[in-house]
């Protein structure tokens, strides 16, 4: 057994257990101390991962895969976790209750994502997804005094349970036909004989279960309410982390496994889902008056762009997806950082609270301006190249109609992002008190701006990273 491959996960779990122990013995600590501890855990895990980044291998008879794709995604998840921990600081300081547990949940969700990145077996996928999602259920409903938070947690729990049901149901069919849930066995089976309808049905159910995590149409209904009701750092984690975790599984399942063998069945289906997801997310975002709902719908739209890369069913497409996942995490975390900053200062997440932000806080306004433009895909920010690569992958697959839908959606999304910019820059401020920005937020924002700007101009490092990740698929 190659247990050493799991070192990053083990370190994270150890850190989580430490937090749990502290919670049990009611050692009251400040939020700064706890977040430093959690960050330390993430740092240790990253350090361990860095040392074994060149390893390729499997553990548990192919149930756990350690390859470049897993390494790349693990780095992405660790970075996302670190940023979320930084962003959580102000929120946890306000909540006197069970502070340690919140960080514990963040770390456990992160462990779930790490394992998903490596999952080589449908059952491991299920377990890891549950680990991640259960942490999210609790985090979403964390503010017991806020009815919206409770409601969001409940909705998420019910719909998440449905998704898990789909996943298990599909897995049972796949197991029934092939006699295994291991990806490698599945692959061997598909190469020997044509896919039976039962297998296809099982695959479809698995895709549906994953669709909930990706927030792809028609499995997106939970997104706006959950994004709206959850504490903002959790929303950011959901958008950047949970979605990427879903795509991690999809990347392993679709292209190498089903891809070359079941092209004709999957490509139109995924392309259609991509088109619908893009259109729905972007169109529904237009009338929103709450920034979290707006970003929630926009995250549905982005799931559509990412699905466009998946629909290409090529290693080019998967590389583009990896690139865009990293870009999207940077852009969306940056946007949420500003949302957190504004809501800390003004106490509101309504768009009306952003009126005249450019005069009360030029820094936050400029940051959000850049983040939204990057999300819209405006050069020289990183979203531009990401979208272009996804479009290119779709066009190379011959899906020109999908590329047309994609570019139309770029215009639609630009419209509602500009509506926010309009409020910030063109409307007068309601009150003139300057908005203070805390230090962790400032660090996050500067790092985020540097990332989306530099990676937008000098795309080469991230392109190499993405190509390297899909090298062995």
């Amino acid at each position, binding site marked *: 057994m190659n247990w050493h491959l799991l070192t990053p996960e083990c370190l994270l779990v150890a850190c989580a257990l430490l937090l749990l122990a502290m919670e049990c013995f009611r050692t009251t600590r400040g939020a700064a101390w706890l977040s430093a501890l959690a960050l330390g855990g993430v740092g240790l895990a990253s350090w361990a991962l860095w040392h074994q980044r060149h390893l390729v291998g499997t553990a548990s008879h192919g149930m756990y895969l350690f390859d470049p794709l897993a390494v790349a995604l693990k780095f992405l998840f660790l970075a996302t976790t670190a940023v979320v921990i930084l962003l959580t600081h102000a929120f946890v300081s306000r909540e006197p209750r069970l502070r340690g547990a919140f960080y514990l949940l963040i770390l456990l969700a992160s462990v779930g994502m790490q394992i998903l990145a490596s999952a080589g077996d449908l059952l491991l996928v299920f377990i890891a997804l549950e680990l991640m999602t259960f942490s999210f259920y609790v985090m979403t409903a964390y503010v017991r005094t806020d009815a919206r938070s409770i409601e969001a947690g409940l909705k998420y729990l019910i719909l998440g349970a449905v998704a898990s049901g789909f996943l298990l149901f599909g897995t049972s069919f796949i197991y029934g036909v092939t006699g295994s849930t291991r990806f490698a066995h599945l692959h061997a089976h598909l190469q020997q004989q044509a896919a039976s309808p039962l297998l296809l049905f099982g695959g479809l159910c698995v895709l549906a279960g994953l669709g909930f995590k990706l927030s792809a149409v028609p499995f997106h209904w939970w997104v706006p309410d959950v994004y709206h009701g959850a504490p903002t750092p959790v929303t950011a984690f959901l958008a950047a982390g949970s979605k990427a975790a879903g795509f991690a599984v999809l990347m392993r399942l679709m292209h190498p496994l089903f891809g070359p063998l079941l092209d004709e069945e999957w490509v139109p289906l995924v392309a259609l889902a991509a088109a619908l997801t893009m259109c729905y997310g972007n169109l529904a975002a237009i009338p929103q008056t709450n920034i979290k709902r707006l970003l929630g719908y926009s995250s549905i739209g982005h799931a559509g762009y990412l699905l466009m890369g998946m629909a290409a069913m090529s290693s080019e497409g998967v590389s583009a997806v990896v690139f865009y996942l990293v870009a999207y995490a940077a852009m969306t975390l940056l946007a949420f950082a500003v949302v957190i900053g504004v809501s800390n200062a003004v106490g509101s997440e309504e768009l009306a609270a952003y009126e005249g932000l450019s005069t009360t806080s030029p820094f936050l306004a400029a940051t959000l301006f850049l983040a939204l433009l990057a999300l819209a895909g405006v050069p020289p920010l990183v979203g531009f190249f990401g979208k*272009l690569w996804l479009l290119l992958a779709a*066009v190379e697959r011959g899906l020109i109609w999908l590329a047309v839908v994609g570019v139309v959606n*770029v215009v639609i999304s630009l*419209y509602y992002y500009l509506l926010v910019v309009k409020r910030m820059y063109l409307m007068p401020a309601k009150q003139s008190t300057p908005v203070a920005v805390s230090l962790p937020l400032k660090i996050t924002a500067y790092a985020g701006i540097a990332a989306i700007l530099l990676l937008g101009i000098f795309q080469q490092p991230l392109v190499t990273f993405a*190509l390297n990740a899909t090298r062995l698929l």
Partner: protein
Amino acid sequence: MSVGVLSVTLLAPLCGVVAILCTPSRATNWIRRIASTATLVSLLCAVWLCTHYDRIIGGFQYLERVAWLPHLGISYSLGIDGINLVLVLLHALCAYTGVLISYAITERVKEYYCFYLLLITGVFGVFLSLDLFFFYFFYEMAVIPMFPLIGIWGSHATPFSKEYATMKLTLYLTAGAVVALIGLLALYHFTGLRTFHLSTLHEYLIHHPLPVATQRWVFACLLVGFGVIAPMWPLHSWSPIGHAAAPSAVSMLHAGVLMKLGSYAIIRLGLTLLPEGAKFWLPMVATLCLFNILYGGWVAMAQKDAKFIIGYSSSSHMGYVLLGIATLTPLGLDGAVLLMFAHGLMTALGFALVGHIYDQTHTRLIHEWGGLGQQVPFVATAFVFMTMASSGLPGFANFVAEVLIFLGAWQQYKLQAMLAVFGVVITAVYMLRMVRTACFGPLNLTWTHLVDARTWFQRWPYLLLISTLLLFGFWPGFLVSTIDRAARPLIAHVTGDDSSSRMVTFEPQDSERSTLNSDL
């Protein structure tokens, strides 16, 4: 890698942005100095390029190429030939004078100049790039700064609010851009070379042309996409509103240069890469552009707001440019590019002058002005120059350009040429009426407080624009021979007719005469 002169031209404004970001926002004078220095560097580079470009060799010169993303065949690749050389000079002039005119901006100076210089960088990038990826990259980069520039520093274009104007402009231009992007991606895909490099694609397509049907729909994408910014009727409706709402320096760049990006892209990408598509669609453009010329002019006649008049006159004049391109004759193309240059300077001058008056009167309705010649003689004189140039009076570069276009059009589309000539009359009507109402007659006593451009520093941008227009009005050969060097091989490539390329001549007057004689 050494930094070439083209990179300096392109990156000087960008360095300006970085420098301004590092300057405290209170130091407005320093910010202005940085901006004017940055654009002056670009202008000097452009002038240097004009004098050093080798007209005998022709083709792309001062090439720079750095592999950017080898995996996708993207390279940072700059080059200059007769066509974009002229446009770079135009843009450098407009950018520099625009920065000087912007000294009137006193609110949020730092942000203003950042956005303005970003816009300038983007436009330089489009003109200089020989890589489709960076072409598009810079194009989008030029469009987006317009949103805050108009939204924050603009003025309401009654009956439309500036918020409406800026949103409409940004969305129209982005929508156009993404339609064009589909065309570009299709080109990338169908050639199968995995390169975005223009010259490589061009050489490949000479020997392996795409199927005619493919060329037609890809060209349609480019035509519609870039036609929005050109602005080709009926896709023009964003432009007069946008011009009217924008602050004067932004209108200058916008009408002066940004609109030329559309026709430039059609020439550079459409004609070069898709000759069959061009042959199929351009006759239709020759008819559509009559709507630009006549309808645009007609609407301009009905306007009362000076910026709307110049705005509609711009879309009317851009109709001539499209007509010139549509002729697919060397004469027409020479005229089109020269008119882009001349019209850019003329319209930049017009917006700058209107801005000067508007900043003090806070109205742009010409019937409320009246008799300004007595109060602000310098500005009024410059205004007269502008109207003369716009009406295509001999002595201004506009005249030469329009004549070349009509000659070219006469060879191909006799009916359209005859109708288009009436555009000149319409232009004269609204321009002369504007100058009469605004500058002559008794002085409206409300405006006795108006201040003229008194110092030489204030007059310098106007003088620079007027003198350039006059210089190339009397000496068009310099520019026309440069343009011609690039236009002839291009037209020969599109029409597949070698005769026009063999007639290489460096004295365009001769070639005009010979074509005229052969016609007669």
